[in-house]
């Protein structure tokens, strides 16, 4: 977690997404503690909002890399 960006929102079910400094990757942190890296924010949101599917507390060892799909507007 980037120490320069302390958490702000205090709700019980807050999702956090950190742009990992020096990379193009995003670290998604679910309110359940599950973490996963992504290269595409759309896939990231699909995973976060899919809680609890495929959510295990703690960092994932492998970043989720998938072909970056186009997506329909306002889907």
């Amino acid at each position, binding site marked *: 977690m980037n120490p320069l960006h302390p958490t*702000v*929102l205090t*709700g019980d079910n807050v999702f956090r997404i950190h742009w*990992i400094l020096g990379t193009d990757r995003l670290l998604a942190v679910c309110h359940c503690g599950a973490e996963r890296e992504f290269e595409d924010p759309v896939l990231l949101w699909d995973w976060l909002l899919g809680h609890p599917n495929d959510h295990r507390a703690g960092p994932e060892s492998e970043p989720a890399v998938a072909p970056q799909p186009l997506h329909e507007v306002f889907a």
Partner: protein
Amino acid sequence: MTAFVRNQWYVAAYGREVGRELLGRTILGEPILLYRTEDGRAVAMSDRCVHRRFPLSQAPSRLDGDRVVCGYHGFTYGTDGGCVYVPGQQRIPRTARLNTYPVIEQDSFVWVWIGDREPGDTVPPRAPWMDSPDYTVVSGMEPIDGDYGLLVDNLMDLSHETYLHGGYIGTPEVAETPITTEVDDAAGVVYVSRHMHDAECPPFYAKSTGIEGRITRWQDIEYHAPGLYLLHSRIAPVGAPAPNADGSDPHAFHTEVVYGITPSTETTTYDFWAVARDFALGDQEVTDFLRENNHTVVMQDVVALNVLQQSLSTEKAGYQELSINIDTGGLAARRILARLAQANTEQRSVATAR
């Protein structure tokens, strides 16, 4: 288009706009009449006479005390929406009543509740800088010929400042600095932080604060879906001390940039914009500069979004776009808006089934 979200408070006007002149605004497709009673209370009701649908905000409609007289045939309504006079007959039809809207005046805004039920304990989100003696505020409203989702998208990703607002508020560092995003889905709040530690000072801040060198620049977005957007902006010379643990921050300049995002029709939006500052309080020269400069920035967005809407309107259905890291906050906002709209649909389905 971005679906409307009902059962929410929306900014209908600034308090200064609502007076003894009749004001018409269309919010979520509903024509609404706003005025202030003789004792100073803001009221909102349907802007269509029940008789032949003449707009009550349109001259020669007028106020008679606290009553509204339709300028077409003289139907007259009280502040509760009830008709008290119809021309040429004693009997007032039972259905001669205007729908009224709950109103809250707060932080210099007139908020109107657009919903299928009463607001109950739900109150609008706060923007306390707007009428605080510790801040000087410039503000205005510009209509946009575009879906309100385009304005949400625009404001949630400030990397566009570098390109659309270069020479005003944009510098290269904005687009180059990573963001952190937090989302409280249940509360409908998205928070996006971009902290630049050694950045060029854009003219907007250089001229208003007097800072000549490079700056630390923090942009912390707090979006309360669907209708209120706050940008907490912190500017300080590089090397200046960070905020104190108690929250005080005497070595930095702060602006609170506030937007009321109010959907009017499916393709038009009211863009209520404001900049509240905690420096150069009451300095008219700085006020004039920030008003003119920020209005220019707002119009750069308005022109761009009008063009974008025209462009999207000619796209074939099912057109596609591409999102990247900078869009993380904007995507979160879209998801929340879609979820809220879906909840409206489900509530209506339940109500219909009963």
